[in-house]
């Protein structure tokens, strides 16, 4: 059974953090995205700095746009990225 979430970084976040993904342990009951950010920042201070330095940071849980109050559970895929600039 999964005990961690997969974390993906895109665009300027990926570039500044220097990798495409992380994993982070979360309890079976889950944690908020904000709590997950704290866990990731504890694992690597750079991640915390990049989060802090990214205005209008966006998050998706399992490929659907989410808020920082949403809950993340083991096995989920969580992605962080700057505002989208398609088209």
């Amino acid at each position, binding site marked *: 059974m999964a005990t961690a979430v997969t974390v993906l970084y895109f*665009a300027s976040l990926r570039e500044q953090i220097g990798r495409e993904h992380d994993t982070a342990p979360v309890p079976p009951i889950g944690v908020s995205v904000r709590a997950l950010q704290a866990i990731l920042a504890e694992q690597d201070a750079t991640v915390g700095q990049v989060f802090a330095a990214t205005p209008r940071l966006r998050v998706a849980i399992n*490929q659907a*746009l989410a808020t920082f109050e949403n809950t993340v559970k083991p096995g989920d895929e969580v*992605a962080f990225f700057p505002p989208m*600039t398609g*088209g």
Partner: protein
Amino acid sequence: MIRVCVQTEEFDVGQEAARLSRVSDSVGGMSLFVGQVREQNDGLESLSLEHYPGMTEALLTELAQQAHARFNLLACTVVHRVGTLGVGAPIVFVGSSAPHRAAALQATAFLIDRLKTGAPFWKREHFKGGRTAWVEAKEADDTAAAAWD
């Protein structure tokens, strides 16, 4: 009919138009939009387009379904390229067909306005001399997307 593609290859506007046109004898109007890489005396050479595989297709499909229902379309298509695209290269194709022109015109404007800020694509600019920069999200694009709320 809904058609959504994310691809590196160039799309064929004529073929995409033909698909939208032939979907039904009830098609009276078809509105198409093509976005392409623009150079404005800033020395831009190319864009590189990154996306979130899986989520992109899902969000574009949802967006196309919204347009289809909201404007009573007969068909709509979204094709978005990723990878490296030089100045003048087409980036995105959006098209809608409907019995009447107003629905088709509005649906295509809706699709491109919403797609700009609502699908996980990120653009990086590559300039002459090697400088690169991530394209900043524009407030005007958020305003245009929100105008359809």
